């Protein structure tokens, strides 16, 4: 099959038309358009007239790099999405525009993702993905300082977190639309992408290692002064936490998310709860249950961040011991 050669469709993250409700579509489009507008003005300042050829060719790179795969086991293979690598090497704004054109072309040319759903797909893969990736990359790098390997650790964390957060956003959009009960969609999407994210992280690290060795200027160049860099760190963390905060609201049965905490990582177990979505659906009042779920979401986010920080501290200590 010809199409599958260019488009391995590595993740079930491109939402087709027909799956999202009008409200979700409009919100996603508005958010995406705001982000793209900001990115357009920012890259015009930083790249000037160069932005068209540079971002155009690098968008083609992302597209082509998604063809690269490696065997994991038994016929399944890991693929590369590239949002994190783009954010690390180009900076978040240019990465947003690059990924936006990639996602748009996938929809227009190959029907990978719908045309109306494009707003949501851009939001997940071209806005949330790069912003979260860049935020976590800067955060971990700041924690590690300029030691050897800090770029690679940060790259892995950034790639993994950005994939999982984008998948969570996708699940929430489906949940809010009443297409897929969040109690099933969220753990399933997060679980699958927690695995896919490992492959993504490893490839991103390999690519970063090679670029650092041959063109260190591209990796080491601090694209933003420290305070602006910290803004991205908080921005990335904020998106992750906001998603955690809102996810229980997407479910008419808030206790679905409590199960997520138990089931995270056990995809087959995630099939257990069966909910029927209410067609005209109401937001649950903030009951104790909802509060508990929100707390669970925040705790989950913080655990991810904690692992990153812990990893950083461990490396730092080992280095000190070696010195």
């Amino acid at each position: 099959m010809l199409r599958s050669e260019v488009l391995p469709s590595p993740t079930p993250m491109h939402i087709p038309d027909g799956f999202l409700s009008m409200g979700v579509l409009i919100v996603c489009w508005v958010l995406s358009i705001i982000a793209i507008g900001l990115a357009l003005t920012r890259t015009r300042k930083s790249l000037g007239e160069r932005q068209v050829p540079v971002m155009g060719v690098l968008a083609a790179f992302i597209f082509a790099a998604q063809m690269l795969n490696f065997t994991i086991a038994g016929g399944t293979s890991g693929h590369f999405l590239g949002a994190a690598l783009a954010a690390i090497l180009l900076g978040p704004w240019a990465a947003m525009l690059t990924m936006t054109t990639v996602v748009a072309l996938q929809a227009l040319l190959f029907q990978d993702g719908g045309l109306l759903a494009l707003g949501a797909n851009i939001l997940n893969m071209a806005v949330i993905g790069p912003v979260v990736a860049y935020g976590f990359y800067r955060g971990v790098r700041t924690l590690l300082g300029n030691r050897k390997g800090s770029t690679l650790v940060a790259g892995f964390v950034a790639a993994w977190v950005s994939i999982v957060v984008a998948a969570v956003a996708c699940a929430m959009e489906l949940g809010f639309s009443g297409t897929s009960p969040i109690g099933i969609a969220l753990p399933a999407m997060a679980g699958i992408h927690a695995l896919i994210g490992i492959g993504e992280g490893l490839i991103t690290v390999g690519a970063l290692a090679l670029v650092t060795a041959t063109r260190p200027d591209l990796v080491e160049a601090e694209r933003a002064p420290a305070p602006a860099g910290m803004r991205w760190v908080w921005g990335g963390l904020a998106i992750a936490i906001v998603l955690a905060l809102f996810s229980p609201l997407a479910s008419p049965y808030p206790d679905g998310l409590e199960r997520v905490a138990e089931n995270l990582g056990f995809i087959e177990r995630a099939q257990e709860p069966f909910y029927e979505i209410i067609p005209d659906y109401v937001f649950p009042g903030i009951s104790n249950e909802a509060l508990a779920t929100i707390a669970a979401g925040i705790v989950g986010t913080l655990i991810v961040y904690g692992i990153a920080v812990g990893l950083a501290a461990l490396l730092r200590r080992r280095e000190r011991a070696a010195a």
Partner: protein
Amino acid sequence: MHLHALDTYLPGESPVHRLDPRVKLVLTVLFILTAALMPDRAWLAYVLLEGLVLGAVLLSRVGLGVVQKRSALAMPFLLAALTVVFARPEDVGQGQALPLPGTPWAISEAGLWRFLSIAARSYLSVQAAVLLAATTPFPDLLWGMRALKVPRILVAVGGFLYRYLFVLADEARRMMQAREARSAVPQGHRGGGTVLWRARVTGAMAGTLFLRAYERSERIWNAMVARGYDGEVRVLSTPTLRPSDWGTGIVGGLLLVLLLVLVRTV
């Protein structure tokens, strides 16, 4: 083999091919919007919409089979919606849910209808998008988007992406071929190293591809400046809308709106 063959445009001579790209783009989006705004279980409306899109496919002479085959490829995502079919265990035995024999699961009638409605609307939309891509050369599509006020830079970046996609995809394919050629496995041995090692190799390939792309973009930029590029992308001709384009656009748009109003009010 070069990847040019992957272009999804199918050249042809038909009223659909000749239709102005702006009109085609607007009608396609309008069609998908109409499908999205249809309520669940509006089966008659779904059939009418399917009739519209099939009529356009027949008119375009790209082949019913091709469109159906390409549309089916977009369907695996339906798995995500399949979950609405199942009922909560406590609903079982209350008339609305049908227990699946031998399992603790139950299917709810409302959920089943919802799933089928989502599938129908989704399939309708994909067919329209497939037809648009199959009958419109991508540069024309870009031009149409520009004419419809999509930001100039996004359109220009899209144009570059399309121009170099095939160059870089060829490059990626050559790299994978080279990896294959160097990955012989002696009989009776396990080949390929560990997963970590394989991932690192693939990562290095992605890094190499990135550097080649980046350096290529620098050369392209220099070549463009040498030819007088000042940030503005210019095109030679801008086609005007013919009366037939207007006619098709208006009739098609009215049909869709009428259908929507009828279904929504009746």
